């Protein structure tokens, strides 16, 4: 495998594997938030705000993978 092919493969693997964890995390978190909203609809506003903070923090992990993939493709 030459260096160019390895670069492309590395970028693909970085994005794919890097999206795995945040996907699981987002699914778990939103599912739990929906559960608790269904249980206590009166605090749904607070739950939603906290959920969005969590979404932002979790999603950032996938975006780090995206940045790494970009670096592999265009900079390295």
């Amino acid at each position, binding site marked *: 495998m030459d260096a160019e092919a390895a670069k492309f493969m590395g970028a693909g693997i970085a994005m794919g594997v890097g999206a795995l964890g945040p996907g699981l995390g987002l699914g778990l978190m939103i599912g739990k938030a929906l559960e608790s909203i269904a249980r206590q609809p009166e605090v749904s506003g*607070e739950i939603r705000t906290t959920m969005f*903070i969590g979404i*932002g923090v979790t*999603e*950032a992990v996938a*975006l780090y993978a*995206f940045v790494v993939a*970009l670096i592999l493709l265009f900079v390295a």
Partner: protein
Amino acid sequence: MTTGIQQNRCRRSIARRSLTAAALALLLVALLAGNLARLAAASESAEPTPVGEPAAGETKEEQFDVAKEFEREVLVALPSVGPVDLSITKGVAYLLITLGVICVGAFAVNRGVKMQPGRFQVMMEAIYSLTRDGIVGSVMKSGQETWFPYIGSAFVFILVSNLVGLIPLPFAEGHQLSFYSATANLNVAIMLALCTFLFTHYAGIRKNGLARYLVNWAPASAPTVLKPPIWAIHAISEIFRLVSLSVRLFANMVAGHAILAVFFAMAVVFQSFLASVVLQGGSTLIYLFEVFVAFIQAFIFAILSAVYIGGALDQDH
């Protein structure tokens, strides 16, 4: 009488709605026409290549090149003052557009405040109450009045900048229409994150005093042996907040623009007119999702700024 007014209002709202629908349809048709024209141009220039091998070179040229997001393309060359280069690049142009939109909006909303608010005023009031009660009020325990202006204006700036970025403007090379926004520039994102970073420590030091603020990074209830490592971890996390705040905003915008560019260039990627017509619907859905992302990113930046500043003010772990 009332029924007449109601009918009138109903008719007007229907007219407005159909106008909006017509404008959206026009935009989509324009994008589709652009796609088809580009496809025609690509297939014309790709004529000599054999059918078995799609015109790889042509396709690659039309595709989105992320490296271009980092280039400083000077639009208006201006003299530099000392070390500061005043030339207007693409990012600066988008910053100025954002600034103009915010200023015009602020003047417009200040000029005609009515007891019975119109649609525009209701929207602005919704944004105000969202930042004031939804973000600052629900997250910060003290110092709400002091820090609401910063967090509110950061929210409005990022929101307007992201939304301006979703309008295709002719700033790409050769004045092609393209998606870009000031927040899709790493420099702007880092400066915004740096503002939050500096304000966090300024707020903490001003309220608690330098020594007590730094000592409180490790919770007082922790065992003495564990205090130094906890303090070190907290110090590292403070630095990484800077990275995560800026990279989150920047990468979200760049990824969004990349996806939009790829979807709207479907015709060229698949080398087929039919695919582009069918996938235009998908492109529209992605576009609507990007509008949602623009809002969510502004919200997350503002609420995380509020969490950080609130955490520095009230240091009870």
